[in-house]
């Protein structure tokens, strides 16, 4: 599977357009940081940086990583890939994971923009915990990309909804307003959403207030695992549908 990760990294490196999301989203942080400085809210700099990072990770997954299977269909590589003895699904998961992981450096990028560009007091109190939570969250985001890629192929017209898969989820994850201000039913959904847990844990780890983080990390890992399983099952269903003729080999 190292070959699949290496191959995907090369493919993306040679397709600069696919990295556009990673370049654009951090630009948001410039706007956010400018607003913070203007309103003398420098203390919120780290939270803003983490928000920009998570938005970047999510949108990269929705618009780039989730396209992996459909791109294989368009380029005619799905057909020979399916002829390999049963490893394509694993290779796809690795490729989607690799694509998503390319969003992780954005965390360092936004922190540096805040500190060096604006002189803001961005700091990470518990870097080890932060990295662990960021990695787990990225895995969950990759699972989301698997799920979306499967749904986009199974359901005609689902692509039209792709653009709607960002801001509603930012709200649900508490990236735009605190989850506490959301209506009760939405708060209940947010409690099951890994991104909401990951975001809060990241903020707490950065602030040094994540006491007793073990159970929270375990809960995050469990939610990510469920998400990953769901993504793999949907994608396996898509690949099985190709054999029955329900899904076309070529887009």
């Amino acid at each position, binding site marked *: *599977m*190292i*070959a*699949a990760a290496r*191959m995907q990294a*090369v*493919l993306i490196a*040679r*397709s600069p357009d696919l990295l556009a999301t990673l370049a654009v989203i951090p630009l948001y942080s410039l706007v956010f940081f400018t607003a913070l400085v203007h309103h003398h809210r420098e203390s919120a700099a780290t939270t803003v940086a983490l928000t920009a990072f998570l938005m970047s990770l999510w949108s990269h997954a929705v618009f780039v990583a989730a396209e992996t299977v459909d791109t294989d269909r368009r*380029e*005619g*590589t799905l*057909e*020979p*890939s*399916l*002829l*390999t*003895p*049963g*490893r*394509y699904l694993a*290779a796809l998961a690795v490729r989607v994971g690799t694509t998503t992981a390319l969003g992780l450096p954005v965390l360092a990028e936004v922190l540096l923009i805040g500190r060096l560009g604006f002189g803001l007091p961005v700091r990470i109190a518990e870097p080890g915990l932060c990295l662990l939570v960021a990695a787990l969250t990225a895995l969950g985001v990759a699972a989301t990309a698997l799920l979306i890629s499967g749904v986009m192929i199974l359901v005609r017209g689902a692509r039209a909804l792709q653009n709607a898969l960002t801001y509603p989820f930012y709200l649900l994850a508490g990236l735009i307003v605190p989850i506490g201000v959301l209506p009760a039913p939405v708060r209940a959904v947010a409690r099951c959403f890994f991104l909401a847990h990951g975001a809060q844990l990241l903020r707490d780890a950065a602030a040094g207030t994540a006491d007793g983080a073990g159970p929270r990390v375990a809960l995050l890992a469990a939610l990510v695992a469920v998400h990953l399983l769901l993504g793999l099952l949907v994608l396996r269903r898509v690949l099985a549908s*190709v*054999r*029955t*003729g329900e899904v076309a*080999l070529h887009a």
Partner: protein
Amino acid sequence: MAVVETDRLGRTFTARRGRRVTALEGVTLTVGRGEVLGLLGPNGAGKTTLSRILTTLLLPTSGTARVAGHDVVRRPREVRRRIGLVLGGDRGLYGRLTARQNLSYWAALQGLDARTAARRTDGLLERLGLAARAGDRVETFSRGMVQRVHLARALLGDPEVLIMDEPTNGMDPHSAAGFRTLVRELRDAGTTVLLTTHDMHEAQALCSHLALIDHGTILRQGAADTLLAEVSARRTVTATGVPAGAAEVLAGLPGTEVERGPGGAVTVRPADAETLTRVLAVLVEARAEEISVAAPGLTEVYRSVIEDREFVV
């Protein structure tokens, strides 16, 4: 020994509004080890459906198919370990990767360990004349080179059966000839080949056996020589420098079709062997030049079996 065998194989699809469409019906065929079966038929005849079932990409709705002794429905993984698919055209490879990167990726998907994958990749790049361009992106390759990468990919798993879907489509004549030489080498080494093509010249040059398919059913199949001998199509006689008087004599022979061209060129299709002898005698007596007789080829076999749907008036 049969390497590919199907028994009353069928496939139907459900189109919009629940309408059933039959893509394949009652297909029974056998391909032995080292044989090259040409699958000939018009677009939409069922060739691709048959190829996809044999490669496990599509499930049949009736009948059975076995490849290298394994059922394509019940043991798809065993089948996949024993087949290679060669697609025609530009699609099917990662254009932004180099030839070597493409092959390394597919070798990993085939389950080859890193050392074996590197050895096979190097060997195939060398054997198929791609070693000098192994580090170049596939998107910069000519059609002929892309086809060789397709073939190299298909050969990574050392398959018993190669399934080729119009492999020389769009190639220039030199590339196509080189590709056919490679296929002959594989055939001689014992690889069984199922070749889907519209190119009758290619089919005649490569195939030991033929199956003509249309409307999802096999209309005629057998050894290529047998099918060619059975065809009742006429011989074609061509000559140049034929005097007008001799051309009129030819046109007067019973059941003979004559086409006249510039410079005394004529094309004659005699009705039978006896008339053919008389046509040749007339041409020799008239001191015609460049007299040649062409036996009916696969094109004639194809045209006598498959009905013309495109240009029927």
